[in-house]
């Protein structure tokens, strides 16, 4: 009896506890957020749309945009001392490697971005309160972004796996081991996506005030033009170096014979894009003072047309601006570009001014002479003494260089874009609170002077500053240690860029013609220069250069490098033209900034040896990625 009772108790206890246990452990409430919640309402889905946009490259961010410190447009303090994100600078200095690749975007951002785009496209139909019209537009935007992320990857890595659809998380080990695909396939897929998208994209944003930065049809067409031009460029089009660059199953990844049709297709796309943009009111920017207190001479008006074409936000020339990259942070690209102009009042200089992005001497040399031809070709320019001859600025030069200020020949007799884009010792710096042409800032850059080396890191190591990137509306408040920045969307595509792309594609597909010169001259005219034909004929020691396809190619390339300097284009252009090894392995020089006297200051001082070889055209894929996915092949040379 007792035993029975006991066993009864025991059983009862067991049953009770186990039954109770299940409930006890069930602690997760209903309505815990899952990914389904992201596609319930329009407002949620909009967030996901913005997430897809979030993955766009951080244009102008020196720590993330390879086109900044990785190229040869900027030098900076090294070792980097905490005020600038200099991790990508290590690539320029030859530290790229396969173990932990610098700027490793293969293992991270962009493939994730593609997955997110696909998640959006897979789920957008679930949203209940989204109109078909808006849905179409959103889908088109995401398709464009998907194309753009493919393009971003192909620029860095060459052949990539195309991510049309997402693989499920439970995909088998074999399924996930994707292969790289022929660059042409990648470009074609990218372009086809843009074509699909363009049909549903708005020509004009319905609400500019809140939507500027979102994709429109002209943007899609312009980027398509850039992509097709890239695809037609020698790096991708018939690159013999990659004849043996094949997948493991021996499929080629590059076409080894150049195909001229690619240029034709590119030219067509450029034409189409230009038409669409111009129809939409885009035109080359001309400076109009915003306030009546701004008093400018014609010279300054010209300089400001050049400079503000980038910094005047959402101006008529801008086709696509990065609304997320406005350079307004405390160490944004505007602060890093700004030179120190005013003598500081306390014991230490204004630290809100970064002043750390320093264009080296070869960038200063790149600009044309005042005659609109390269200084090394200009018959009238004293090229031999450009580093050595010092002289005082004349009154006629007072809008460029402070009258009577001693500086070097390199800073004299240059085209307006030199004076618009660069700050230098003795140079006039319009704006920044001083908008009267007769009372402007003068940048004094030698040691002990306001703009010269201060402290351990916040200074230009070369003696030049990328004035172009600093919005002239930014104001300096030294006593409060402030630099008040007016952000502007970093230009991803502007009309001048598109004109020059078209000129390039035309020259490549059809050779020199008046039509080609015309597109270049539009840009030159805005820069205050005479046309290509006239300038070369009159001033160059290679007067007929423009009439040959090769010569004209050189001219177009130089024009692009000058016009789009500091805009994150040079880095990619040098690669797609397959000329990077001519530019990126040399001594990067500046002035001897540790000197107080002009005679000593204007001495060429090497800063570092830049490093580039054939393998650097494409970044390495990390060794680990290749081990995880044996179907991937490494880029040549790594």
């Amino acid at each position, binding site marked *: 009896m007792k035993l029975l009772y006991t066993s009864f108790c025991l059983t009862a206890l067991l049953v009770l506890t186990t039954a109770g246990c299940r409930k006890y452990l069930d602690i997760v409430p209903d309505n815990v957020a899952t990914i389904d919640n992201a596609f319930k309402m329009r407002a949620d889905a909009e967030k996901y749309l913005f997430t897809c946009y979030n993955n766009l490259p951080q244009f102008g961010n020196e720590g993330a945009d390879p086109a900044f410190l990785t190229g040869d447009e900027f030098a900076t303090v090294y*070792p980097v001392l905490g005020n600038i994100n200099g991790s990508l600078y290590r690539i320029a200095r030859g530290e790229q490697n396969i173990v932990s690749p610098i700027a490793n975007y293969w293992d*991270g951002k962009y493939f994730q971005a593609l997955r997110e785009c696909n998640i959006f496209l897979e789920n957008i139909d679930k949203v209940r309160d989204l109109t078909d019209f808006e849905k179409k537009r959103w889908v088109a935007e995401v398709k464009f972004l998907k194309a753009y992320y493919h393009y971003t990857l192909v620029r860095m890595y060459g052949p990539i796996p195309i991510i049309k659809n997402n693989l499920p*998380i439970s995909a088998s080990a074999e399924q996930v081991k994707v292969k790289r695909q022929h660059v042409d396939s990648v470009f074609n897929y990218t372009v086809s996506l843009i074509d699909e998208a363009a049909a549903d994209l708005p020509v004009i944003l319905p609400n500019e*005030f809140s939507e500027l930065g979102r994709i429109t049809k002209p943007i899609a067409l312009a980027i398509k033009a850039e992509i097709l031009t890239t695809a037609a460029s020698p790096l991708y089009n018939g690159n013999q170096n990659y004849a043996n660059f094949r997948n493991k199953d021996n499929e080629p990844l590059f076409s080894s014979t150049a195909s001229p049709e690619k240029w034709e297709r590119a030219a067509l796309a450029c034409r189409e894009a230009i038409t669409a943009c111009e129809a939409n009111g885009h035109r080359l920017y001309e400076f109009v003072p915003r306030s009546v207190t701004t008093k400018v001479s014609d010279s300054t008006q010209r300089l400001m047309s050049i400079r503000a074409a980038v910094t005047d936000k959402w101006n008529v020339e801008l086709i696509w601006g990065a609304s997320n990259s406005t350079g307004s942070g405390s160490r944004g690209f505007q602060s890093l570009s700004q030179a120190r102009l005013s003598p500081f009042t306390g*014991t230490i200089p204004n630290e809100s001014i970064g002043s750390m992005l320093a264009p080296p001497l070869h960038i200063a040399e790149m600009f044309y002479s005042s005659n609109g031809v390269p200084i090394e070709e200009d018959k009238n320019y004293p090229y031999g003494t450009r580093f050595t001859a010092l002289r005082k600025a004349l009154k006629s030069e007072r809008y460029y260089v402070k009258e009577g200020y001693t500086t070097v020949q390199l800073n004299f007799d240059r085209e307006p874009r030199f004076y618009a884009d660069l700050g230098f010792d003795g140079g006039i710096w319009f704006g920044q609170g001083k908008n009267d042409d007769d009372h402007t800032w003068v940048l004094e850059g030698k040691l002990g002077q306001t703009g010269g080396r201060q402290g351990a890191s*916040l200074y230009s190591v070369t003696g030049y500053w990328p004035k172009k990137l600093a919005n002239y509306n930014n104001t300096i408040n030294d006593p409060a240690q402030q630099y008040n920045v007016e952000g502007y969307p970093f230009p991803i595509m502007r009309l001048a860029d598109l004109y020059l792309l078209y000129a390039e594609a035309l020259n490549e597909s059809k050779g020199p013609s008046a039509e080609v010169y015309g597109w270049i001259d539009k840009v030159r005219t805005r820069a205050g220069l005479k046309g290509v034909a006239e300038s070369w004929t009159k001033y160059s020691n290679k007067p007929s250069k423009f009439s040959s396809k090769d010569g004209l190619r050189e001219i177009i390339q130089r024009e692009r490098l000058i016009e789009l300097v500091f805009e994150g284009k040079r880095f990619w252009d040098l690669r797609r033209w397959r000329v990077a090894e001519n530019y990126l392995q040399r001594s990067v020089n500046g002035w001897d900034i540790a000197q107080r006297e002009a005679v000593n200051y204007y001495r060429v001082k090497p800063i570092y040896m830049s490093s580039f070889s054939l393998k650097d055209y494409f970044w390495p894929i990390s*060794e680990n990625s290749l081990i995880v996915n*044996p179907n991937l092949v490494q880029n040549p040379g790594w």
Partner: protein
Amino acid sequence: MFIQPMKIKTGMGIFTNEKKVFQLLYMTAKQLLMAVLATGLSYASPTYSQELLKQRISISVKNASLKTVLKNIEEQGDLSFSYQKQVVASEEKISLEARNELLEDLLKRVLSPRNISYQVVKSNQIILSKTPEEGKGPTGALPGTEMEPLMEKQIAGKITDEKGEGLPGVSVVLKGTQKGTTSEADGTYRLAIPDNDAVLIFSFVGYVSEERQVGTQSIMNVVLKVDNKALEEVVVTAYGQKQRKEAVVGAVTTIRPGELKIPASNLTTAIAGRLSGVIGYQRSGEPGVDNATFFIRGITTFGYNNSPLILVDNVELTVTDLARLQPDDIESFSILKDASATALYGARGANGVVYVTTKQGKAGKAKINFRMENSVSMPTQNVELADPITYMKLYNEAQLTRDPLAAIKYPQNQIENTGKGNNPYIYPSTDWRDVLFKKYTQNRRANLSVSGGGEVAQYYVATSFSNDNGMLKVDKKNNFNNNVKLNSYSVRSNVNINLSPQTQLIVRLYGNFDDYNGPIDGGSGIYQKALKTSPTSYPAYYAPDKANEATDHILFGNFDLGQYLNPYADMVKGYKQYSRSKMLTQLELAQKLDFVTKGLSVRGMANINRSSYFDVTRAYNPYFYHAGSYDKQSDTYTLNWLNQQASNEFFNEPATEYLNYNPGAKNLESFLYLQGTLDYSRVFKEVHSLNATVVTTMQQILKDNSSAGQAQSLQQSLPSRNTGISGRLSYSFDNRYFAEFNFGYNGSERFHKSKQFGFFPTIGGAWVISNECFWKPMERIVNKLKIRSSYGLVGNDAIGRPDQRFFFLSEVNLNNSQRGSSFGFNSNYTRNGVSISRYENKDITWETSYQTNLGLEFSILQKLNVIAEIYKQRRSNILMERASIPSTMGLAVTPSANVGEAKSKGFDLAVDFNQNFKNGAWLVARGNLTMARSVYSIFEEPDYKDRYLSRVGQSISQPRGLIAERLFIDDNDVKNSPRQNFGVYGAGDIKYRDINRDGQITTSDFVAIGHPETPEITYGFGLSAGRGQFDLSVFFQGLGRESFFINPVASAPFIDYNKDNNGDNDLFPANLIGENALLKAFADSHWSEENRNIYAVWPRMSTVENQNNSQRSTWFMRDGSFIRLKTLEAGYTVKGRVLENLKVTNFRIYFNGTNLLTFSKFKLWDPEMGGNGLGYPVQKVFNIGLNMNF
């Protein structure tokens, strides 16, 4: 005195202060004595415990031996009988039936007819002795002279235990005869013997027998040593069950709490080397964060949680709670090691269990125990730094050797002037450690406990206080104290109330409170910052210049724009205070259910804990200056104020002379635990013993998520719950054969419904060979021999970080401000984005450990006891990140799955040896050894072509690195060697071996190097000896088969490295600049262009991190094995009439020290710190203490 030789032996530095230290110790000893004598007067009271006899016992046996009956009473009454074997040797079978009878009556009923008398000694021990025949004296002592007129000689003496207490009832037998006597109540005896050659045998149950030749003496005092075997008879196992040691089938290590007494207020530091089966080490010596790391049987999983379950009185607590326990309050300390021992904890016990119970009151007059200690602690070893001149010279060298064009930081003129000792503000040479740290510090501890009670209730009440201080100097310039000061208080009250003879209510209350005051960075932060600051760029502070003569604030030194580290400013600018509280309440009701069926009882327990932590910081923002101009003629300078602007890039707030307030982290935790136990225990037919236990538990932990570092999420806010039912069934036959079956059926809220519960069964068995008849002939030599074995499953549900708790759910942030975008003319149409931090996986479940254990226990000649165990474990379902998913999948996080598997095996050995000498001296030697090795058996990794890249078959904490061959001789050497892919390198940088011969050094050339980073061997051995009032013990502890790495970045001279030594957390914001110190060892031996030593300790200097040299490699690998004199203790027990008058039963003064000597091949810092060598040093402690019982 005894200290003298120690002083000579130590020889490791910091000896200028030794004298002071000992003076200090001496003085404290004096103070202590006075204090205790004063308090003693008010506490004196006699101790006696007749209450024991008033308890009520129920018993029902049929045809049992007297021995069994006594055992039964022992179990019920929580008492023990001591007797000579022949007292209860009778073969008579007894049948007995008693219900709630007073023990006193029961004993009379049982013993009187059998001519046995009893006497209560101590609180719970009853001594039985044969009642003398009619006509003999009532005490039972036989005056030998009257009995044996033939005897020629009288011998007399006193038999005492080790503490000097007289032992009554000890049998004294003349060897080779039947003649003998028993000792009196005070331990004295008297016996007539034939001649001087006579040998007497003194024996007593529970004590080790002694044989003595009489010789010429007529007084022979004997000290009997406690027989450890007998003392350890009871072992506390899972859920606090007491098992006779003989009956234990699982692997359980117990330690007497007394052995955990070390001069430190952190119990965890005492564990390593003292308990077989535990691998342990201590990496930092900072008060408050000096918990030792320990693992039961090593690290047996590569999953998230590898630390043991810590249970105090059945309640799960944290390592810090364990660290704060007072050894004096501990009743039992057990380590449950194998599946059989831990099975009842089911899904939580796989990493072993630390099981602690606290003392309970015993009926009787109040007993008071008081202990007080005062100690002096100092670093065991300080890292030696290069002098400032060398520092500057080598800094310049580091610049120029990497970049010949570099502008050197320290001009020749500065080096010369610093050398000459000119104006120290202009030519600073700051030994930051000297500025910031004292050479030693003092700590204090005291604890007091009172226990006693009556028939209705018994109590144990204890309180303790400890005060630990850091090494920081307190600056007179400041008006607040910012040295590390950790005061810890605790109160414990355990009360047992007998509601009825069958019902007992136990109430346990415990509170532990830490109050901390210290620098904002903590002692460790300041210490590390001191080693990351240039000694020669600026002084700690400036003497005021002319303009600042009236300035109130300290003129802190800095450089450039004020963004350089000034640890002095960081130390004195303010202080942080934190309070940590733990309140624990526990209610337990035990009900005997003998009326249902005999041997059945139930217990119910409820526990509620609350923990809280918060900190506040008060600090001013320092003013930083730099000497702007210096006039050599007048030796005056003017100071530039560097951080005068409010929006300074490096400082968010302006410099202030007043304190600002900053609220810090707040952690709150509530804990609820319910437990129900059903016990059944019965002996059938005397030889069949059956025990069954069923336990049900429910546990909930709820944490707030407001602390600064923690991500706040809904999922983390949900309570953690465990529940389950587990049971044990054990059977033994005639104390020879034991079998046991355990199971745990446990669930955890972490898993999907279909995976929530798991069943974890174990079986085990033991055979006590020495209890077999055939062993009789061997018994004199091998008096105990037992083998045991177990096999079973245990689980581990803590498989992921707290934020990963619900693997079966996805974790989505639908409002992530980092993932949004902005559009519009002013970029102000912003929407946050969506991010996924976990993909759902409903299959995730706990790790399961399959454990096999084999144990052998034997003891030889009652003196040498050995427990040896070998074990094997297979841990499956280890959660790990999928390694086969390429990044092209685009997953935001790598998913995890239960795919890993590890295997481990090891060996635990515990040996002790006891010896008593004729002159009353005694000696105990103990040693233990733990070897544990765990290897990956299944590890998801890419399909490596080179097998050496695979982790399978390698130790879980096996470091992998490059094999460094030597340094490059010159650039030609570089050109002719395989390309190294880690960063720029050249002559003088480390040359690595190209393992796979592909012409490149990459991650594919990383191989297993050295020993694991967690030691595979932990051992300890010690010796205690005493004679009369003196006792002395030494204890050595060591680690073996461990490698560690000198962190090549944290220790790299001159570079700016803002992480702590482990590289995990920021020590200071990245926009501030530090400059690593230059270790003397590196200054003395490094590659330079003049001295191209390709085997120098440090490669070519650099002022920035050299990625090539900072790869993990054999270059910086060191042997971490060491052996150290962990503790040395000398005690003196004071005796005398004065104490007796004061009713002091025990008064002992002792001196001890920890970490006094270290023997290791590694000389730069204390090897126990491993790679954390530049952190707060492990401390060496000299301590004086006293212990009093009333």
